[in-house]
């Protein structure tokens, strides 16, 4: 039994942890995550593993991927979990459309499925006739929190630019929309909006050029903290300390920047607990609780110097 599990999980991509031996009556939860090269998911995995040890009443099999867009290995992981007959699948989909069909198969096999982190596409769910709740943060609302902090500080007419994440990624879209909500709500002037693909060096290059084109910019909204770090370094290089920067994710590297005022704010969506929370919800359903419905929003919090 254990050997089969090991082989199946290994075949799906990166093998993270096999469950404890023995105690066959414990429910088995299959956790499917996105790229573990991403600090955010790496922390999430650590959180889930700690959670398994603390609760002690379930078995965790976790699978990650090589990169953000590798949804094929996610599909394989789900299919392997179906074959293994796990009790629940908890998944952060890499593609909000491609993952609907394999998850439908899992539900038809009687497996409890919980979708967290990124919501599956509503239209695709409807087309496949799938009813599935979403457990996760409101990326758009979170970005709006950060955007509003900037709007509050600048006041109406403040000139801002947006540094976007990967074009086409759902969380990138949501965060951009949230920033745009703030722009509208506070009457800000959006000078330019460009992608830096979540990456520090690219954000540094793209923003320093945007600064040349728009020297009158007053605020920057970056869709993640890695890019915000690149923006802050560009501002330092240009000797501009009059421009305010907000980010998203609350990675440790921005802590000092928020403290000394180089960054105005970031947003924490408590990634480390996110997978653990979703597992809790899944186990409740497995234990006979009612099915989840709609959108179970998880905590988000604005982080500032005070």
């Amino acid at each position, binding site marked *: 039994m254990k050997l089969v599990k090991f082989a199946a999980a290994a075949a799906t991509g990166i093998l993270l942890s096999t469950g404890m031996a023995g105690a066959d009556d414990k429910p088995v939860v299959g956790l499917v995550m996105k790229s*573990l*090269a*991403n*600090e955010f998911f*790496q922390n999430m995995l650590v959180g889930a593993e700690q959670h398994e040890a603390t609760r002690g009443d379930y078995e965790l099999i976790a699978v990650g991927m090589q990169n953000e867009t590798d949804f094929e290995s996610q599909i394989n992981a789900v299919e392997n979990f179906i074959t293994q007959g796990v009790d629940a699948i908890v998944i952060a989909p890499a593609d909000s459309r491609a993952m609907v069909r394999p998850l439908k198969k899992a539900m038809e096999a009687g497996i409890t499925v919980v979708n967290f982190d990124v919501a599956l596409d509503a239209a695709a769910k409807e087309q496949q006739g799938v009813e599935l709740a979403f457990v996760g943060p409101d990326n758009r609302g979170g970005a709006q929190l950060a955007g509003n902090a900037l709007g509050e500080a600048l006041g109406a007419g403040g000139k801002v630019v947006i540094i976007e994440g990967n*074009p086409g990624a759902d969380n990138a879209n949501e965060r951009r929309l949230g920033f745009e909500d703030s722009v509208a709500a506070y009457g800000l002037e959006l000078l*330019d909006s*460009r*992608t830096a693909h979540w*990456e*520090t*060096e690219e954000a*540094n*290059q*793209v923003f*320093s*050029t*945007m600064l*040349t*084109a728009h*020297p009158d910019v007053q605020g920057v909204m970056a869709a993640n903290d*890695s890019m915000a*770090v*690149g923006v802050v*370094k560009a501002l*330092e*290089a*240009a000797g501009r300390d009059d421009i305010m920067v907000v980010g998203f994710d609350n*990675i*440790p*590297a921005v802590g*000092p920047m928020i403290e000394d005022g180089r960054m105005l704010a970031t947003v924490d969506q408590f990634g480390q607990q996110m997978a653990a929370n979703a597992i809790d919800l899944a186990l409740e359903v497995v234990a006979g609780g009612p099915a989840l419905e709609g959108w179970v929003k998880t905590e988000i919090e604005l982080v500032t110097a005070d």
Partner: protein
Amino acid sequence: MSSADDIGGTPKNGAFSLRAIINNAGIGLALLVLILFFSVTTEHFLSPNNITNILTQITINLILAVGMTFVILIGGIDLSVGSVMAFAAVVAGKAITLPGLGTTELIVLAVLAGLAAGLVCGIINGGISAYWSLPSFIITLGMLNIARGAALQVSDAQTIYSFPFVFEEFGSMLIYGVPVVFLLALLLVAIAWFVLNFTVFGRLIYGIGNNEEAVRLAGHPVFWYKVAAFTICGLTAGIAAIVYMARLSIASPIAGIGFELNAIAAVIIGGTSLAGGRGSVIGTLLGAFIIGVLANGLILIGLSDFMRQMITGIVIVVAVILDHYRAKFSAS
């Protein structure tokens, strides 16, 4: 295409030959046209701040491209430089954040560790592909994954930060508006130019690209020259890692994804033949400028991200077509 001159140790095909001047003049002209175009169409392109920006922006790509020129000249390719840069950065990042050491010791240790990490990856790339005569495309594709995995493993997928102040200062230091890190890149170009044109080693790099068998029959240790070319490429990835850290004050294990493609593009746009044996590091310098000027200028004129990506792609394709005709011209 290959003559005895190319294989021997004389600089007849050097930077001062008529052919080399014609080759580089075309690229220089293209760069000039781009600069003129953006100066006319945008307000800020020629402002001192923007020139400083462009120089900063092309630095890392230029450093990687200098090493890449050696590898492409021998008819190889190195797809691993972006990952190797990330690996070298997290190794150096781990070193520079060690507790209980003085600032100077930390910086020296970090620089040596970063360079060593790059060097080792280069030796492995070159050693394996040369010893078994395997295509470097595949070996370095393997290294692309190995080094990226190693970078994630060493750093536990966390961004490393909080470096000594003087180290971060170095990354943004200017001399008359010119970034010190760019001067460092320029120094590497000068060294590479000298080595390629005026040393036996350099001439044999061209020779191997033109006719490896002839170089071997002439009694030269081809294996070691090939290893050296990849080692130089790994070393420049290590140098790029140090510059990355100094500029951005972080070492990220996901840094440099896709950087190998920009470095290859700079070399090819610069007129170095993918088949090896023909090209120059001065061309690479101009190629890096073309990519940097395009990236900067297209944002300044307000073109969308997607259009910008398309135009950069078109420029690469056009450069290769031009190279085709240049090769015909040189052969006749």
